[in-house]
């Protein structure tokens, strides 16, 4: 069951289809590394209570209607005949069934029947086992079949067998009777024919849109009564006459016709694209299709860089860098990310009742792209260059007017096409989700990362699969976090509803067991199904019994994966505001579908009333933030990840950045993107200042790790040689004890120990030590295993990254290594993200932070800075987590990293000025706009060349904002200790994750490769993984001691 559900949910399909999309990208060579894409957010599984109607389709592996058909057919005829009858008319699912069923299941079935103890539960147990994929078990042995058949016949003769059991047993055994079933002719044909006129009502639907499974009810009856499908159709002339009468039907018919045509053309187009890309891979990259699934993107990229030297694909330069490739693939996406980052796109709204909400759908995105990038008269003249007039500032007002009128026209076109698109959307949603919902109603209660979230959380230069794997890793924690906030009222209601529905269901089931004819009563089956759905939905509102309320920690784990988070979430994780805002990034699937359905109506409104107003800003944005890169074309300058131009002083680029507020990327986007890119592409040679930044940051992490007094705790790693945690895990069996250090030392009630542990965990993952050590130890492992491969030499040698080195001796080895390394890269990035957020928090503490989350994009809502923020002049006073009894004073002098506190002092004035000016801007928005006709003049005066107002920077900081300086210093320290501990916890979580991943990986590989150089390694990790899995008992025990 698990395995199947894992493979089937819609989210998986989205990933694969996104793989197809990405492969259509202009560069034409981008394909997902399968291992990265393979990580899927697992949907919640509801194995405990599964209504039969949901289980059966799983069993058969055929779509729902078939099963219903089967069931209905059984309802109307006596049991024995039902078996034969159904076998007669439904040969296809039967064959599927027979090929799927494992042996054990048959045995069990037999015993069940022999004992004459039919019950739904035993059946369910059987079916659940039947779900297990049994690749090797397809054919059942003749003996078994024989016993089975004997048992069946014996059973069939037993009198007084309950009907429900017959129905169910039938599913397990029908295929046995394939040959014997032809002679039977079903009685009760007259009876069923009575349904035909009634079915004629459905037939209109059937006639109009026969691909929709809507009419299956009708089909069922016809089927079981041997009325074949063509019989059930009305004569063509009647049908067409009926259709002609109804204009709406014609409309729907046309739309669905276009829909299917579109699907067909798209299919053909995708196949053509696939073919082209395939030939590129085979001919240019020299990668066969068979080895492609094991190749990671890094390897593919390395090949592209390689063939550039030979073929000169890009004629402008001799060598292609990784950044060039990313830029070409992600040109427009980078623009979108930057525009979302700078709150340029109107996606946040404050409608009267709903409050602050985000509306960003695929339709809206499509329109944005149409307007900016490729539509008629868009800003770009082709796929790679902005039109020259938009690069000049001279006639920006005129261009803005032109853009505004264009947006207006597109909005009107949207409005006119609205009914068509609406029907289209409904059809689309209907076709794609109905089956899923029927099969797994739980998927509606599941969550997914919203489209806005994907834009907000995306780094510059991050490919789809990188983003998706990152977000998928955070999925579990995120849904846990969201589940923390179930409303008690809702829980009470849900419990009662579930009970009510459950009782009804129980009665129905009991009745069905007693007499199968109950199912034949109209609507009984559907009500059983609906009740089942209802219970599943209710269940999602009932909190898990074993859940612990620890939002702060969960949020940190989430942050480790998603890397971005508005400042004011930290310390406020337990608040509903935070939760609501997070739910904008991480929404219900049902909400997602609903928004998509609403989108055709809302999109034109947004375009006409919101986007049009921003045309001048958009023109300015594209002019100011477009750079022309030789060999790449025009790209978004943010995507250059140049700290000097776009760094944010509050994000560790103080002193290095020359950016005005307008130029600064929010939320540390530049810095984090830079780190991310540098870590995922270690061979990339950044420009000098950037290298400086990276090395400085790494050094800082390093320094902080070593700056801790190493003699505070005997178990702390910092006194031993600086070996990395992971290198230990992988390489040396000698230091088994050191893995325990985290738990031990924190339980040892030593305040500073937690600190040093956190720091050493950090340091251990800092690339200075870890990547080298890791690689070193990896290569050592290679050698130990007797594999002096090319790669291990490369690894041991110049520190070349193994991710990009193609394997020398055995393909598996290289792939394993490269996978492991990319896993490390993501861990490393997570740690860095956490660290940077931590530092940022320390730097900007006590100031009126910029609160980019609430940075207003729509002018009318400029005053919407949340009340809780404004009314709290002292936001850090609530940085203490509510869930812990946290002491207010901890005498740990080494708690604050010296560098951080120093820089926070330095940066204070600067940051205050910037935050001041940002508030200034925020409030100056509506005043200029409310001027009406004269507003434009004022605004352009304020923004001489489209830049953001610079005068904001020159404002003197208001005295009342400097309350920060009066803060008692120990609070900082407490926080510092606390956060260090958190980092430590998360570090441990990673190690756990990592080890379990490794184990999984290992097991997968082991199936294929007999001989495995990593055997000892993984077993090592395994046992340590278990060690680490023990809960981290008292994160604050250290403070107790103090």
């Amino acid at each position, binding site marked *: 069951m698990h395995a199947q559900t894992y493979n089937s949910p819609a989210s998986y399909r989205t990933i694969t289809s996104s793989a197809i999309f990405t492969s259509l990208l202009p560069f034409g060579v981008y394909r997902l590394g399968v291992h990265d894409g393979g990580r899927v957010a697992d949907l919640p599984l509801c194995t405990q209570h599964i209504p039969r109607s949901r289980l059966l389709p799983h069993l058969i592996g055929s779509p729902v209607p078939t099963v219903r058909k089967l069931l209905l057919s059984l309802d109307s005829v006596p049991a024995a005949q039902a078996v034969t009858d159904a076998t007669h008319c439904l040969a296809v699912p039967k064959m599927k069934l027979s090929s799927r069923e494992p042996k054990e299941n048959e045995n069990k079935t037999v015993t069940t029947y022999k004992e004459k103890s039919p019950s739904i539960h035993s059946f369910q147990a059987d079916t659940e086992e039947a779900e297990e994929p049994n690749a090797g078990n397809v054919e059942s042995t003749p003996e078994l079949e024989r016993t089975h058949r004997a048992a069946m016949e014996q059973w069939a003769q037993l009198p007084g067998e309950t009907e429900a059991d017959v129905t169910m047993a039938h599913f397990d055994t029908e295929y046995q009777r394939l040959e014997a079933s032809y002679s039977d002719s079903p009685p009760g044909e007259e009876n069923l024919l009575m349904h035909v006129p009634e079915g004629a009502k459905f037939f209109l639907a059937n006639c109009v849109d026969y691909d929709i499974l809507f009419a299956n009810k009708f089909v069922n009856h016809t089927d079981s009564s041997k009325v074949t499908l063509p019989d059930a159709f009305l004569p063509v002339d009647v049908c067409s006459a009926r259709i002609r009468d109804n204009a709406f039907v014609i409309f729907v018919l046309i739309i669905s016709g276009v829909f299917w045509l579109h699907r067909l053309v798209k299919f053909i187009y995708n196949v053509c694209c696939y073919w082209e890309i395939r030939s590129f891979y085979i001919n240019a990259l020299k990668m066969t299709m068979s080895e492609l699934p094991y190749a990671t993107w890094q390897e593919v990229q390395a090949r592209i860089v390689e063939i550039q030297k030979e073929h000169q694909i890009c004629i*402008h330069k001799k060598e292609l860098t990784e950044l060039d490739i990313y830029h070409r693939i992600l040109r427009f996406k980078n623009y979108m990310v930057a525009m979302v980052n700078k709150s340029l796109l109107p996606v946040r709204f404050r409608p009267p009742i709903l409050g602050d909400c985000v509306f960003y759908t*695929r339709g809206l995105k499509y329109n944005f792209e149409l307007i900016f990038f490729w539509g008629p008269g868009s800003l770009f003249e082709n796929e790679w260059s902005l039109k020259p007039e938009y690069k000049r500032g001279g006639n920006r007002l005129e261009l803005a007017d032109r853009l505004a009128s264009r947006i207006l026209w597109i909005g009107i076109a949207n409005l006119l096409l609205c009914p068509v698109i609406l029907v289209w959307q409904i059809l689309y949603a209907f076709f794609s989700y109905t089956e899923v919902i029927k099969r797994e109603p739980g998927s509606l209660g599941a969550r997914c990362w919203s489209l806005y979230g994907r834009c907000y959380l995306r780094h510059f230069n991050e490919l789809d699969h990188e983003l998706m794997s990152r977000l998928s890793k955070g999925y579990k924690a995120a849904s846990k976090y969201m589940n923390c906030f179930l409303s008690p009222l809702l829980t009470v209601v849900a419990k009662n509803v579930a009970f009510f529905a459950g009782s009804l269901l129980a009665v129905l089931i009991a009745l069905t067991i007693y007499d199968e004819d109950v199912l034949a009563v109209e609507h009984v089956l559907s009500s059983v199904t609906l009740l089942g759905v209802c219970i599943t939905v209710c269940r999602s509102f009932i909190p898990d019994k074993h859940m612990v309320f620890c939002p702060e920690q969960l949020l940190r784990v989430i942050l480790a994966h998603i890397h971005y988070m508005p400042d004011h979430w930290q310390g406020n994780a337990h608040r509903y505001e935070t939760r609501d805002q997070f739910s904008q990034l991480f929404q219900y699937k049902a909400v997602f579908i609903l928004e998509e359905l609403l989108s055709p109506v809302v999109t034109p409104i947004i375009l006409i009333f919101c986007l049009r107003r921003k045309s001048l800003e958009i023109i300015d944005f594209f002019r100011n933030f477009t750079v022309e890169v030789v060999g790449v074309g025009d790209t978004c300058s943010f995507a250059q990840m140049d700290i000097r131009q776009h760094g944010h002083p509050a994000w560790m680029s103080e002193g290095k950045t020359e950016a005005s507020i307008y130029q600064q990327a929010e939320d540390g986007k530049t810095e984090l993107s830079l780190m991310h890119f540098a870590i995922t592409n270690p061979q990339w040679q950044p420009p000098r200042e950037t290298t400086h930044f990276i090395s400085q940051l790494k050094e800082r992490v390093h320094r902080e790790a070593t700056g801790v007094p190493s003699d505070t705790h005997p178990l702390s790693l910092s006194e031993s040689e600086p070996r990395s945690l992971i290198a230990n895990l992988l390489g040396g069996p000698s230091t088994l004890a050191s893995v325990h250090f985290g738990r031990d030392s924190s339980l040892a009630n030593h305040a500073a120990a937690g600190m040093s542990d956190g720091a050493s965990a950090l340091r251990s993952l800092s690339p200075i030590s870890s990547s080298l050590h890791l690689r070193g130890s990896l290569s050592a492992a290679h050698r130990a295993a007797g594999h002096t491969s090319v790669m291990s030499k490369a690894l041991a040698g110049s520190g070349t990254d193994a991710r990009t080195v193609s394997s020398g001796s055995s393909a598996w080895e290289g792939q394993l290594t490269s996978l492991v390394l990319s896993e490390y890269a993501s861990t490393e990035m997570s740690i860095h993200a956490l660290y940077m957020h931590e530092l940022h928090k320390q730097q900007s503490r006590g100031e009126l932070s910029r609160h980019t989350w609430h940075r207003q994009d729509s002018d009318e809502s400029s005053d919407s800075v949340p009340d809780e923020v404004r009314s709290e002049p002292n936001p850090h006073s609530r940085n203490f987590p509510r869930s812990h009894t946290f002491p207010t004073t901890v005498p740990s002098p080494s708690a604050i990293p010296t560098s951080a506190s120093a820089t926070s002092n330095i940066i204070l004035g600067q940051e205050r000025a910037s935050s001041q000016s940002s508030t200034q801007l925020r409030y100056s928005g509506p005043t200029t706009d409310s001027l009406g006709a004269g507003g434009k003049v004022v605004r352009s005066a304020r923004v001489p060349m489209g830049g953001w107002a610079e005068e904001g920077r020159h404002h003197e900081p208001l005295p009342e904002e400097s309350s920060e300086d009066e803060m008692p210093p120990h609070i900082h320290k407490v926080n510092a200790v606390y956060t260090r501990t958190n980092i430590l916890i998360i570090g441990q979580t990673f190690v756990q994750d990592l080890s379990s991943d490794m184990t999984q990986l290992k097991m997968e590989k082991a199936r294929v490769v007999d001989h495995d150089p990593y055997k000892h390694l993984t077993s090592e990790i395994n046992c340590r993984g278990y060690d680490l899995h023990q809960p981290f008992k008292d994160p604050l025990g250290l403070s107790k001691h103090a």
Partner: protein
Amino acid sequence: MNCRSEVLEVTVEARQVEEAMLALLHTILLHRSTGKFHYKKEGTYSIGTVGTLDIDCDFIDFSFVRVSSEELDRVIRKADALSNSGSDGMGQISLEFYQKKKSRWPFSDECIPWEVWSIKVNVVNLATEQERQICREKVGEKLGEKVINVVEVINRHEYLPKMPTQSEVDNVFDTSLKDVQPYLYKITFQITDSLGTSVSTTMRRLIKDTLAL
């Protein structure tokens, strides 16, 4: 994106347009032509020589060198004449060198440009003979500069298509001429700023993106 583009701008009188264009186009083509390839056994080939010819202009104080191939001259003159059919004002001729990529039956061959020379022409009307005389000299000087400019650009070590094998020679060179073999080229012109090209590309994008959605 993936091709070099060079822009030359000239301001001439209406009657000088043709000669000025010829001068520039021929200069570029002179440097982008080779002699005919004569293939021998086992993949070796010999390259013929390219004869040159000095041409004196009638309306400009200028003379230039061109390949002594009447056929090539005819082709260029034809294109040039077409482009001159427009009236005065602004205009642009571009000479595009491309490679062909063969594709299978239902699709036509794909042309991948690797170098584009755009010559922007500004046509002026002069009233007096005096001015015309001055213009005649000035245009001559300007053209001289342009020619040197062209030669400089061509002398840089930049991307050129690889020398093809016999079977692929059609993908790189224009082999239709008897006495000379320039790289595949295409002359396009545009009298005023028209939207002709962008609409078609837009439609293409529209269809493509709809499919990708």
